Protein backbone atom coordinates (compact mmCIF):
# COMPACT_ATOMS: atom_id res chain seq x y z
CA UNK A 1 0.00 0.00 0.00
CA UNK A 2 2.55 2.46 1.13
CA UNK A 3 4.90 1.37 -1.59
CA UNK A 4 2.36 2.07 -4.26
CA UNK A 5 1.77 5.49 -2.77
CA UNK A 6 5.46 6.24 -3.00
CA UNK A 7 5.68 5.20 -6.55
CA UNK A 8 2.58 7.13 -7.42
CA UNK A 9 3.65 10.35 -5.84
CA UNK A 10 6.72 10.91 -8.00
CA UNK A 11 5.79 8.85 -10.95
CA UNK A 12 9.33 7.49 -10.83
CA UNK A 13 10.13 3.82 -10.39
CA UNK A 14 11.65 2.69 -7.12
CA UNK A 15 15.40 2.59 -7.30
CA UNK A 16 15.94 0.22 -4.42
CA UNK A 17 13.26 -2.05 -3.09
CA UNK A 18 13.70 -4.38 -0.16
CA UNK A 19 11.05 -6.89 0.85
CA UNK A 20 10.92 -8.88 4.05
CA UNK A 21 14.66 -8.95 4.40
CA UNK A 22 16.05 -10.88 7.36
CA UNK A 23 19.24 -12.36 8.67
CA UNK A 24 19.74 -14.84 11.47
CA UNK A 25 23.05 -15.78 13.05
CA UNK A 26 22.50 -18.97 14.98
CA UNK A 27 19.82 -18.11 17.50
CA UNK A 28 20.37 -14.43 17.05
CA UNK A 29 17.97 -12.52 14.82
CA UNK A 30 20.05 -9.64 13.58
CA UNK A 31 17.56 -8.29 11.06
CA UNK A 32 13.96 -9.30 10.94
CA UNK A 33 11.57 -8.79 8.07
CA UNK A 34 12.55 -5.34 6.92
CA UNK A 35 10.81 -3.59 4.00
CA UNK A 36 12.25 -0.51 2.40
CA UNK A 37 11.64 1.44 -0.79
CA UNK A 38 14.03 4.12 -1.92
CA UNK A 39 13.06 6.16 -4.96
CA UNK A 40 15.30 7.53 -7.61
CA UNK A 41 17.27 10.50 -6.36
CA UNK A 42 15.98 10.08 -2.86
CA UNK A 43 18.25 10.41 0.14
CA UNK A 44 17.31 8.05 2.84
CA UNK A 45 18.80 7.65 6.27
CA UNK A 46 18.81 4.64 8.52
CA UNK A 47 19.35 5.29 12.19
CA UNK A 48 19.21 3.20 15.29
CA UNK A 49 21.31 2.31 18.30
CA UNK A 50 24.36 0.15 18.00
CA UNK A 51 23.46 -3.44 17.46
CA UNK A 52 20.12 -2.56 15.95
CA UNK A 53 21.03 -4.44 12.79
CA UNK A 54 21.76 -1.44 10.57
CA UNK A 55 25.11 -2.66 9.35
CA UNK A 56 23.84 -6.19 8.81
CA UNK A 57 20.94 -4.77 6.80
CA UNK A 58 23.34 -2.58 4.88
CA UNK A 59 25.68 -5.45 4.13
CA UNK A 60 22.83 -7.49 2.71
CA UNK A 61 21.99 -4.66 0.32
CA UNK A 62 25.65 -4.27 -0.62
CA UNK A 63 25.99 -8.02 -1.13
CA UNK A 64 28.53 -8.80 1.55
CA UNK A 65 26.04 -10.97 3.43
CA UNK A 66 23.45 -13.39 2.13
CA UNK A 67 20.05 -12.77 3.67
CA UNK A 68 18.27 -15.59 5.46
CA UNK A 69 15.04 -14.50 3.84
CA UNK A 70 13.59 -11.70 1.76
CA UNK A 71 14.46 -9.98 -1.49
CA UNK A 72 16.43 -6.97 -2.71
CA UNK A 73 15.62 -5.27 -6.02
CA UNK A 74 17.67 -2.64 -7.78
CA UNK A 75 15.90 -0.87 -10.63
CA UNK A 76 13.41 -3.69 -10.75
CA UNK A 77 16.07 -6.36 -11.03
CA UNK A 78 16.30 -9.01 -8.34
CA UNK A 79 19.82 -8.70 -6.90
CA UNK A 80 19.26 -10.72 -3.73
CA UNK A 81 21.81 -13.34 -4.67
CA UNK A 82 23.99 -11.19 -6.88
CA UNK A 83 27.62 -11.00 -5.77
CA UNK A 84 28.87 -7.66 -4.54
CA UNK A 85 31.02 -6.86 -7.53
CA UNK A 86 28.14 -7.33 -9.95
CA UNK A 87 25.98 -4.91 -8.02
CA UNK A 88 28.63 -2.32 -8.59
CA UNK A 89 28.19 -2.78 -12.29
CA UNK A 90 24.51 -1.92 -11.88
CA UNK A 91 25.56 1.42 -10.44
CA UNK A 92 25.84 0.71 -6.75
CA UNK A 93 28.74 1.90 -4.63
CA UNK A 94 29.43 1.83 -0.93
CA UNK A 95 31.67 3.11 1.81
CA UNK A 96 32.68 1.34 4.99
CA UNK A 97 32.05 2.33 8.57
CA UNK A 98 35.51 1.16 9.60
CA UNK A 99 37.86 2.68 7.08
CA UNK A 100 38.65 0.04 4.49
CA UNK A 101 41.34 1.23 2.11
CA UNK A 102 44.56 -0.17 0.65
CA UNK A 103 46.82 0.98 3.47
CA UNK A 104 50.20 0.31 1.88
CA UNK A 105 49.38 2.03 -1.41
CA UNK A 106 49.57 5.70 -2.26
CA UNK A 107 46.45 7.83 -2.32
CA UNK A 108 46.62 8.00 -6.10
CA UNK A 109 46.91 4.23 -6.42
CA UNK A 110 43.94 3.83 -4.13
CA UNK A 111 41.81 6.07 -6.29
CA UNK A 112 43.16 4.57 -9.51
CA UNK A 113 42.18 1.11 -8.34
CA UNK A 114 38.68 2.41 -7.81
CA UNK A 115 38.68 4.26 -11.10
CA UNK A 116 39.51 1.19 -13.17
CA UNK A 117 37.19 -1.13 -11.28
CA UNK A 118 34.47 -1.06 -13.91
CA UNK A 119 36.78 -0.82 -16.91
CA UNK A 120 37.73 -3.81 -19.03
CA UNK A 121 41.33 -2.67 -18.83
CA UNK A 122 41.61 -3.92 -15.29
CA UNK A 123 42.61 -7.23 -16.80
CA UNK A 124 45.37 -5.68 -18.86
CA UNK A 125 48.64 -7.27 -17.87
CA UNK A 126 50.93 -5.22 -20.05
CA UNK A 127 49.88 -1.62 -19.55
CA UNK A 128 49.94 0.44 -16.39
CA UNK A 129 46.82 2.13 -15.10
CA UNK A 130 48.49 5.47 -15.55
CA UNK A 131 48.85 4.86 -19.25
CA UNK A 132 45.08 4.68 -19.59
CA UNK A 133 44.43 8.41 -19.96
CA UNK A 134 40.73 8.43 -19.21
CA UNK A 135 41.11 6.41 -16.02
CA UNK A 136 43.88 8.64 -14.85
CA UNK A 137 41.82 11.73 -15.62
CA UNK A 138 38.84 10.33 -13.79
CA UNK A 139 40.98 9.83 -10.70
CA UNK A 140 42.63 13.22 -11.05
CA UNK A 141 39.29 14.94 -11.38
CA UNK A 142 37.82 13.26 -8.33
CA UNK A 143 40.90 13.91 -6.25
CA UNK A 144 40.92 17.50 -7.32
CA UNK A 145 37.32 17.88 -6.29
CA UNK A 146 38.10 16.54 -2.82
CA UNK A 147 41.39 18.46 -2.50
CA UNK A 148 43.36 15.24 -2.33
CA UNK A 149 45.53 15.80 -5.37
CA UNK A 150 48.39 17.36 -3.43
CA UNK A 151 48.83 14.25 -1.34
CA UNK A 152 48.61 11.81 -4.23
CA UNK A 153 51.97 10.19 -3.53
CA UNK A 154 51.52 9.76 0.22
CA UNK A 155 50.95 6.30 1.58
CA UNK A 156 47.43 5.94 2.92
CA UNK A 157 48.30 4.38 6.24
CA UNK A 158 50.38 7.45 7.12
CA UNK A 159 47.43 9.79 6.72
CA UNK A 160 45.15 11.11 9.43
CA UNK A 161 41.79 9.55 10.07
CA UNK A 162 40.06 12.57 8.60
CA UNK A 163 41.79 12.22 5.26
CA UNK A 164 41.22 8.50 5.25
CA UNK A 165 37.49 9.07 5.63
CA UNK A 166 37.56 11.41 2.65
CA UNK A 167 39.43 8.87 0.55
CA UNK A 168 36.87 6.32 1.67
CA UNK A 169 34.22 8.47 -0.01
CA UNK A 170 36.42 9.27 -2.99
CA UNK A 171 36.77 5.59 -3.79
CA UNK A 172 33.01 5.18 -3.84
CA UNK A 173 32.41 8.27 -5.96
CA UNK A 174 35.03 7.92 -8.62
CA UNK A 175 32.94 5.49 -10.67
CA UNK A 176 29.92 7.85 -10.73
CA UNK A 177 27.51 5.50 -9.04
CA UNK A 178 23.75 5.89 -9.36
CA UNK A 179 23.14 4.56 -5.87
CA UNK A 180 25.53 5.37 -3.09
CA UNK A 181 25.46 3.44 0.16
CA UNK A 182 27.20 5.29 2.96
CA UNK A 183 28.00 3.54 6.23
CA UNK A 184 28.50 6.26 8.84
CA UNK A 185 30.49 8.54 6.58
CA UNK A 186 31.46 10.85 9.42
CA UNK A 187 32.44 8.16 11.91
CA UNK A 188 35.26 9.43 14.07
CA UNK A 189 35.50 12.86 12.50
CA UNK A 190 35.82 16.15 14.30
CA UNK A 191 32.87 18.53 13.93
CA UNK A 192 34.78 20.61 11.44
CA UNK A 193 35.77 17.60 9.35
CA UNK A 194 32.30 16.24 9.72
CA UNK A 195 30.81 19.44 8.39
CA UNK A 196 33.15 19.27 5.41
CA UNK A 197 32.02 15.79 4.56
CA UNK A 198 28.40 16.81 4.89
CA UNK A 199 28.81 19.71 2.54
CA UNK A 200 30.71 17.48 0.14
CA UNK A 201 27.89 14.96 0.13
CA UNK A 202 25.30 17.70 -0.29
CA UNK A 203 27.03 19.01 -3.36
CA UNK A 204 26.88 15.70 -5.11
CA UNK A 205 24.71 15.18 -8.14
CA UNK A 206 21.11 15.50 -7.04
CA UNK A 207 20.15 12.56 -9.20
CA UNK A 208 22.32 10.24 -7.15
CA UNK A 209 20.30 8.07 -4.81
CA UNK A 210 21.80 7.73 -1.34
CA UNK A 211 21.23 5.39 1.52
CA UNK A 212 23.01 6.54 4.64
CA UNK A 213 23.50 4.83 7.93
CA UNK A 214 24.16 7.49 10.49
CA UNK A 215 24.74 7.71 14.12
CA UNK A 216 25.07 11.43 14.19
CA UNK A 217 21.58 12.89 14.18
CA UNK A 218 22.72 16.26 12.89
CA UNK A 219 24.42 14.69 9.93
CA UNK A 220 21.43 12.52 9.23
CA UNK A 221 19.02 15.42 9.39
CA UNK A 222 21.10 17.55 7.13
CA UNK A 223 21.58 14.94 4.48
CA UNK A 224 18.36 13.03 4.14
CA UNK A 225 14.72 13.56 3.41
CA UNK A 226 13.40 10.44 4.99
CA UNK A 227 14.50 8.34 7.89
CA UNK A 228 14.06 4.74 8.81
CA UNK A 229 14.68 3.83 12.43
CA UNK A 230 15.80 0.32 13.30
CA UNK A 231 15.86 -1.34 16.63
CA UNK A 232 16.58 -4.95 17.54
CA UNK A 233 16.59 -5.86 13.90
CA UNK A 234 13.18 -4.39 13.18
CA UNK A 235 11.89 -1.16 11.71
CA UNK A 236 10.17 0.90 14.33
CA UNK A 237 9.60 4.02 12.30
CA UNK A 238 9.89 5.04 8.67
CA UNK A 239 8.93 8.33 7.07
CA UNK A 240 9.79 12.00 6.59
CA UNK A 241 12.47 12.99 9.01
CA UNK A 242 10.44 15.47 11.04
CA UNK A 243 7.73 12.93 11.57
CA UNK A 244 10.25 10.37 12.72
CA UNK A 245 11.89 12.82 15.04
CA UNK A 246 8.59 13.44 16.72
CA UNK A 247 7.86 9.74 17.09
CA UNK A 248 7.56 8.83 20.76
CA UNK A 249 9.19 5.42 20.59
CA UNK A 250 12.09 6.80 18.65
CA UNK A 251 12.59 9.48 21.23
CA UNK A 252 12.49 6.88 23.92
CA UNK A 253 14.92 4.35 22.63
CA UNK A 254 17.17 6.10 20.29
CA UNK A 255 17.59 9.73 21.12
CA UNK A 256 18.03 8.86 24.73
CA UNK A 257 16.01 11.72 26.17
CA UNK A 258 12.37 11.97 27.00
Amino acid at each position, binding site marked *: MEQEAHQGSNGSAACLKVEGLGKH*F*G*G*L*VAVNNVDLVVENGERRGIIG*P*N*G*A*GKTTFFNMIAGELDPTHGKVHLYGEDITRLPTHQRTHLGMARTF*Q*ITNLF*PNLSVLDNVLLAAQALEKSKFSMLRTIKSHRHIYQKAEEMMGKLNLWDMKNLIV*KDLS*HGYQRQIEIALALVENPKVLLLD*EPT*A*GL*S*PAESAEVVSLLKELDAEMTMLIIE*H*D*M*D*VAFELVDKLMVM*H*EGEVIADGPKEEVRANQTVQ*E*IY*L*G*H*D
Partner: protein
Amino acid sequence: MTDNGPMLKVDDIHTYYGDSYVLQGLSLEIAEGQVMAVLGRNGMGKTTLIRSIIGFTKPRTGKISFDGADITALQPHEIVSLGVALVPQGRRIFPSLTVMENLLLGEKEGAAGSGEEPWDTDRVLTLFPRLKERLRNMGNQLSGGEQQMLAFARSLMTNPKMLLLDEPTEGLAPLLVRAMGETLSKLKESRLAILLVEQNMKFALAACDYVHVLNRGRVVHSSTPDELAANEEIKSRFLGV
Protein backbone atom coordinates in the same frame (compact mmCIF):
# COMPACT_ATOMS: atom_id res chain seq x y z
CA MET B 1 45.26 0.22 49.92
CA THR B 2 41.98 0.88 48.27
CA ASP B 3 40.94 3.43 50.85
CA ASN B 4 43.79 5.69 50.01
CA GLY B 5 43.82 5.73 46.25
CA PRO B 6 41.45 5.17 43.39
CA MET B 7 40.49 1.62 42.45
CA LEU B 8 41.62 2.14 38.89
CA LYS B 9 44.03 4.74 37.68
CA VAL B 10 44.68 5.23 33.99
CA ASP B 11 47.60 7.55 33.56
CA ASP B 12 48.40 9.15 30.20
CA ILE B 13 48.11 6.05 28.07
CA HIS B 14 48.85 5.99 24.36
CA THR B 15 47.45 3.00 22.54
CA TYR B 16 47.77 2.04 18.91
CA TYR B 17 45.49 -0.29 17.09
CA GLY B 18 47.44 -1.69 14.18
CA ASP B 19 48.73 1.40 12.47
CA SER B 20 46.25 3.84 13.89
CA TYR B 21 46.93 5.92 16.93
CA VAL B 22 43.79 5.60 19.00
CA LEU B 23 44.30 6.65 22.60
CA GLN B 24 46.37 9.79 22.62
CA GLY B 25 47.23 10.44 26.23
CA LEU B 26 44.14 9.40 28.09
CA SER B 27 43.89 9.61 31.87
CA LEU B 28 41.07 8.82 34.28
CA GLU B 29 40.41 7.45 37.74
CA ILE B 30 37.64 5.42 39.27
CA ALA B 31 37.10 4.98 42.98
CA GLU B 32 35.62 2.00 44.76
CA GLY B 33 31.87 1.91 44.41
CA GLN B 34 31.86 4.53 41.72
CA VAL B 35 30.03 4.18 38.43
CA MET B 36 31.93 6.02 35.77
CA ALA B 37 30.44 6.51 32.34
CA VAL B 38 32.56 7.15 29.26
CA LEU B 39 30.68 8.62 26.34
CA GLY B 40 31.77 9.47 22.86
CA ARG B 41 30.93 8.76 19.29
CA ASN B 42 32.05 5.74 17.36
CA GLY B 43 35.75 5.52 16.69
CA MET B 44 36.75 7.83 19.53
CA GLY B 45 38.57 5.12 21.44
CA LYS B 46 35.99 3.93 23.96
CA THR B 47 36.41 0.27 23.20
CA THR B 48 40.17 0.67 22.91
CA LEU B 49 40.14 2.12 26.42
CA ILE B 50 38.43 -1.03 27.68
CA ARG B 51 40.84 -3.21 25.70
CA SER B 52 43.80 -1.37 27.17
CA ILE B 53 42.58 -1.87 30.72
CA ILE B 54 41.81 -5.57 30.35
CA GLY B 55 45.13 -6.15 28.60
CA PHE B 56 43.96 -7.10 25.10
CA THR B 57 45.71 -4.17 23.49
CA LYS B 58 48.61 -2.95 25.53
CA PRO B 59 49.33 0.79 25.61
CA ARG B 60 52.67 1.73 24.11
CA THR B 61 53.31 4.25 26.84
CA GLY B 62 51.55 5.28 30.02
CA LYS B 63 50.52 3.35 33.07
CA ILE B 64 47.41 1.62 34.31
CA SER B 65 47.16 0.60 37.93
CA PHE B 66 44.40 -1.29 39.65
CA ASP B 67 43.94 -1.60 43.35
CA GLY B 68 47.45 -0.33 43.90
CA ALA B 69 49.10 -2.74 41.47
CA ASP B 70 50.62 -1.81 38.14
CA ILE B 71 48.70 -3.86 35.57
CA THR B 72 49.95 -2.17 32.40
CA ALA B 73 52.00 -5.11 31.23
CA LEU B 74 50.00 -7.96 32.73
CA GLN B 75 48.24 -10.67 30.77
CA PRO B 76 44.45 -10.44 30.59
CA HIS B 77 43.95 -13.45 32.83
CA GLU B 78 46.22 -11.93 35.45
CA ILE B 79 44.24 -8.71 35.35
CA VAL B 80 41.01 -10.67 35.68
CA SER B 81 42.41 -12.53 38.66
CA LEU B 82 43.11 -9.22 40.38
CA GLY B 83 39.42 -8.47 40.23
CA VAL B 84 38.59 -6.84 36.91
CA ALA B 85 35.73 -8.30 34.90
CA LEU B 86 34.70 -7.56 31.36
CA VAL B 87 31.34 -7.48 29.64
CA PRO B 88 32.54 -7.01 26.09
CA GLN B 89 30.93 -5.29 23.20
CA GLY B 90 29.09 -7.81 21.06
CA ARG B 91 28.79 -10.16 24.06
CA ARG B 92 31.31 -12.69 22.73
CA ILE B 93 29.59 -15.68 24.26
CA PHE B 94 31.50 -18.93 23.64
CA PRO B 95 29.29 -20.73 21.14
CA SER B 96 30.56 -24.25 21.84
CA LEU B 97 30.09 -23.97 25.57
CA THR B 98 26.73 -24.43 27.22
CA VAL B 99 25.28 -21.56 29.19
CA MET B 100 26.31 -23.31 32.38
CA GLU B 101 29.85 -23.79 31.13
CA ASN B 102 29.99 -20.18 30.06
CA LEU B 103 29.13 -19.26 33.62
CA LEU B 104 31.51 -21.65 35.27
CA LEU B 105 34.41 -20.72 33.04
CA GLY B 106 35.27 -17.64 35.01
CA GLU B 107 34.10 -18.95 38.41
CA LYS B 108 36.38 -17.64 41.09
CA GLU B 109 36.34 -16.89 44.79
CA GLY B 110 35.72 -13.24 45.48
CA ALA B 111 38.05 -10.82 47.15
CA ALA B 112 37.51 -11.28 50.84
CA GLY B 113 36.55 -8.44 53.08
CA SER B 114 33.78 -6.86 51.07
CA GLY B 115 31.35 -8.44 53.48
CA GLU B 116 29.17 -9.20 50.53
CA GLU B 117 27.84 -12.62 49.78
CA PRO B 118 30.03 -13.97 46.90
CA TRP B 119 28.61 -14.47 43.43
CA ASP B 120 27.90 -18.06 42.51
CA THR B 121 25.62 -19.67 39.99
CA ASP B 122 22.62 -19.50 42.30
CA ARG B 123 23.06 -15.84 42.94
CA VAL B 124 23.61 -14.81 39.32
CA LEU B 125 20.68 -16.91 38.24
CA THR B 126 18.51 -15.10 40.75
CA LEU B 127 19.63 -11.89 39.12
CA PHE B 128 18.97 -13.24 35.60
CA PRO B 129 16.23 -15.83 36.06
CA ARG B 130 15.75 -16.20 32.34
CA LEU B 131 19.07 -17.96 31.98
CA LYS B 132 17.88 -20.68 34.32
CA GLU B 133 15.74 -22.29 31.65
CA ARG B 134 18.59 -22.26 29.16
CA LEU B 135 21.44 -23.64 31.18
CA ARG B 136 21.97 -26.62 28.89
CA ASN B 137 21.68 -24.66 25.67
CA MET B 138 24.80 -23.91 23.69
CA GLY B 139 25.99 -20.32 23.71
CA ASN B 140 25.01 -19.72 20.11
CA GLN B 141 21.42 -20.81 20.62
CA LEU B 142 20.51 -17.77 22.68
CA SER B 143 18.74 -14.61 21.56
CA GLY B 144 20.56 -11.29 21.67
CA GLY B 145 19.04 -10.27 24.99
CA GLU B 146 19.82 -13.60 26.59
CA GLN B 147 23.38 -13.41 25.34
CA GLN B 148 23.76 -10.01 26.93
CA MET B 149 22.45 -11.35 30.24
CA LEU B 150 24.84 -14.26 30.03
CA ALA B 151 27.77 -11.96 29.27
CA PHE B 152 26.85 -9.97 32.32
CA ALA B 153 26.25 -12.98 34.51
CA ARG B 154 29.48 -14.74 33.65
CA SER B 155 31.51 -11.62 34.38
CA LEU B 156 30.01 -11.52 37.87
CA MET B 157 31.04 -15.13 38.41
CA THR B 158 34.63 -13.93 38.70
CA ASN B 159 33.59 -11.96 41.79
CA PRO B 160 35.21 -8.79 40.53
CA LYS B 161 36.02 -5.58 42.29
CA MET B 162 35.49 -3.68 39.11
CA LEU B 163 33.33 -4.22 36.06
CA LEU B 164 34.15 -3.00 32.59
CA LEU B 165 30.93 -2.68 30.62
CA ASP B 166 31.28 -2.07 26.90
CA GLU B 167 27.90 -0.96 25.61
CA PRO B 168 25.80 -3.31 27.67
CA THR B 169 22.54 -1.90 26.30
CA GLU B 170 23.52 -2.46 22.68
CA GLY B 171 20.56 -3.95 20.92
CA LEU B 172 18.44 -4.42 24.02
CA ALA B 173 14.72 -3.76 24.16
CA PRO B 174 13.64 -0.81 26.36
CA LEU B 175 12.33 -3.14 29.01
CA LEU B 176 15.64 -4.93 29.22
CA VAL B 177 17.55 -1.66 29.25
CA ARG B 178 15.55 -0.63 32.25
CA ALA B 179 16.31 -3.96 33.91
CA MET B 180 19.94 -3.44 33.16
CA GLY B 181 19.83 -0.08 34.91
CA GLU B 182 18.32 -1.69 37.96
CA THR B 183 20.96 -4.39 37.96
CA LEU B 184 23.63 -1.74 37.81
CA SER B 185 22.31 0.14 40.77
CA LYS B 186 22.12 -3.09 42.75
CA LEU B 187 25.72 -3.83 41.93
CA LYS B 188 26.72 -0.35 42.89
CA GLU B 189 25.44 -0.91 46.36
CA SER B 190 27.91 -3.74 46.78
CA ARG B 191 30.72 -1.21 46.35
CA LEU B 192 31.64 -2.53 42.93
CA ALA B 193 33.48 -0.01 40.76
CA ILE B 194 32.01 0.16 37.28
CA LEU B 195 33.39 1.62 34.09
CA LEU B 196 30.52 1.99 31.67
CA VAL B 197 31.16 2.75 28.03
CA GLU B 198 27.98 3.72 26.27
CA GLN B 199 26.30 5.15 23.24
CA ASN B 200 22.99 5.30 24.97
CA MET B 201 23.42 8.61 26.72
CA LYS B 202 20.18 8.51 28.57
CA PHE B 203 20.95 5.17 30.10
CA ALA B 204 24.51 6.10 30.92
CA LEU B 205 23.66 9.40 32.56
CA ALA B 206 21.00 7.78 34.68
CA ALA B 207 23.31 5.06 35.87
CA CYS B 208 26.56 6.88 36.56
CA ASP B 209 28.04 9.08 39.24
CA TYR B 210 30.47 10.80 37.01
CA VAL B 211 30.97 11.05 33.26
CA HIS B 212 33.84 11.52 30.85
CA VAL B 213 33.43 12.43 27.21
CA LEU B 214 36.02 11.06 24.81
CA ASN B 215 37.07 12.62 21.58
CA ARG B 216 39.88 11.33 19.42
CA GLY B 217 41.48 9.36 22.18
CA ARG B 218 41.43 12.04 24.83
CA VAL B 219 39.07 13.05 27.60
CA VAL B 220 37.56 16.35 26.51
CA HIS B 221 34.95 16.80 29.16
CA SER B 222 34.42 15.53 32.67
CA SER B 223 31.52 16.38 34.92
CA THR B 224 28.61 15.02 36.85
CA PRO B 225 25.88 13.54 34.71
CA ASP B 226 23.58 16.45 35.45
CA GLU B 227 26.10 18.98 34.30
CA LEU B 228 26.61 17.13 31.06
CA ALA B 229 22.89 16.79 30.54
CA ALA B 230 22.67 20.53 30.75
CA ASN B 231 25.64 21.23 28.51
CA GLU B 232 24.13 21.36 25.03
CA GLU B 233 27.38 22.46 23.45
CA ILE B 234 29.42 19.48 24.60
CA LYS B 235 26.57 17.17 23.74
CA SER B 236 26.24 18.41 20.20
CA ARG B 237 29.95 18.84 19.58
CA PHE B 238 31.17 15.52 20.85
CA LEU B 239 28.17 13.29 21.09
CA GLY B 240 26.19 14.37 18.09
CA VAL B 241 22.92 14.84 19.90
